[in-house]
């Protein structure tokens, strides 16, 4: 847990993650795009569990639903679930070395993606195999950089 968090950094990181999740990305690499908003929910619930909780994560997921044109509530539920899981494990998570944290990022965002695709399939989407887990993997890969960057920003500006 950080002693101070900077609200401007929080706002800008959220807006940036929303922009990154729709901005033009090389088309062949599309399915490897990290789940930016999921990473942000993970980071802010992990670092500031007192301020950032399930309800805020749910609202952010709702925005992602609008951007992705999925039925309202699908991503919202998955984001709320990620925030809940991070809240339950955040004290252990702080003790973990970085590789283990990456593994947790992969697991939680994988659960997020699985839930989203499960609901989509219930609503009638195609079965896409396990390809939907790529974003969780790339998110785990970029997690150390995001974490260090946001920690530094929080320390400087908080």
């Amino acid at each position, binding site marked *: 847990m950080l002693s101070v968090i900077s609200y401007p950094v929080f706002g800008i990181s959220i807006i940036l993650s929303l*922009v990154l999740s*729709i*901005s*033009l990305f090389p088309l062949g690499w599309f399915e490897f795009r990290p789940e930016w908003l999921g990473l942000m929910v993970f980071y802010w619930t992990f670092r500031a569990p007192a301020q950032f909780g399930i309800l805020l994560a749910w609202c952010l997921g709702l925005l992602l639903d609008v951007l992705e044109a999925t039925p309202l*509530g699908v991503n919202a539920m998955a984001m*709320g679930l990620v925030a809940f899981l991070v809240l339950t494990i955040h004290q252990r998570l702080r003790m973990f070395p970085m590789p283990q944290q990456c593994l947790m990022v992969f697991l939680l965002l994988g659960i997020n993606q699985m839930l989203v695709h499960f609901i989509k399939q219930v609503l009638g989407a195609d079965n896409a195999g396990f390809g939907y887990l790529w974003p969780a993997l790339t998110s785990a890969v970029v997690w150390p950089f995001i974490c260090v960057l946001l920690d530094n920003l929080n320390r400087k500006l908080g």
Partner: protein
Amino acid sequence: MQGPIPGFRLFLVIVLSIALVVLDARFGKLDTVRSSLGTSLSPVVWLGSVPDELTTWVKSLFITRDDLQAENETLQARLLILERRALKYAALSAENSRLRELLNASGVLDDRVIVAEIVGVSPDPFSHEVIINKGSRDGVQVGQAILDAFGLMGQVLSTSSFTSRVLLISDSSHAVPVEVNRNGLRAILLGNGDINNLELVHVPDTADIREGDMLVSSGLGGRFPKGYPVAEVASIEKEPGEQFIRISAKPRAHLSRSQMVLIVFQANVERREERLNDNLSDSDTDIDAVGSP
């Protein structure tokens, strides 16, 4: 410090989400909420297109006068060619409408179009959707056809005030009624999630169709305007035991590269619907007139 509350909050959130999903997916009650949220998110969409616009701007800064002149010359040459074609087209369309009058067929009106720009793509890699920078404020409505310079791209799926979402013809949930330009053979063109490949289904194995045939929209179904090129037949596989042949087609529109698109406003379809409604209301009044005495 969060004690037993997280579990309760999670429960609340899940119940809320399920309610929203059911309302949205089963009953479609939340279109206004989605539209207003989308309007408030349009700055995000705009920011998403900024890097792209910035690179084109920087590129335009470092362009030399010679390049511009050369481009100008090629454009003027092209303009001449197109103008000549347009002259011929005007004569042809006049002749066409005369012939149609002779046949007592309804006249064909020119479709009105407006130009829009693609400002974003859907974050979901399993759906082929793009976001364009014209919305309900510009008169865009759900169901309108989208073209680029080469052919049909897709249709408007939803609108907010400043942006709309377009479903591309390559999405696996999309289908276009088409006909073969050479002989008018009708078929349905399905997207299959591959941006360079479409599927022509239910064509019997005796049908007259060849590789390289142009598929144009047939206008059946009333959603897409008639006569716009959609795809070109790329390969045909005949299997002796099967009832239908397997045909794959390559979309004519540059689905993954186009930046500028055209939104088609179909004047004649609206008019036809109006006429239909008029007829219906007329028959209603007739019934009333008969019923009242």
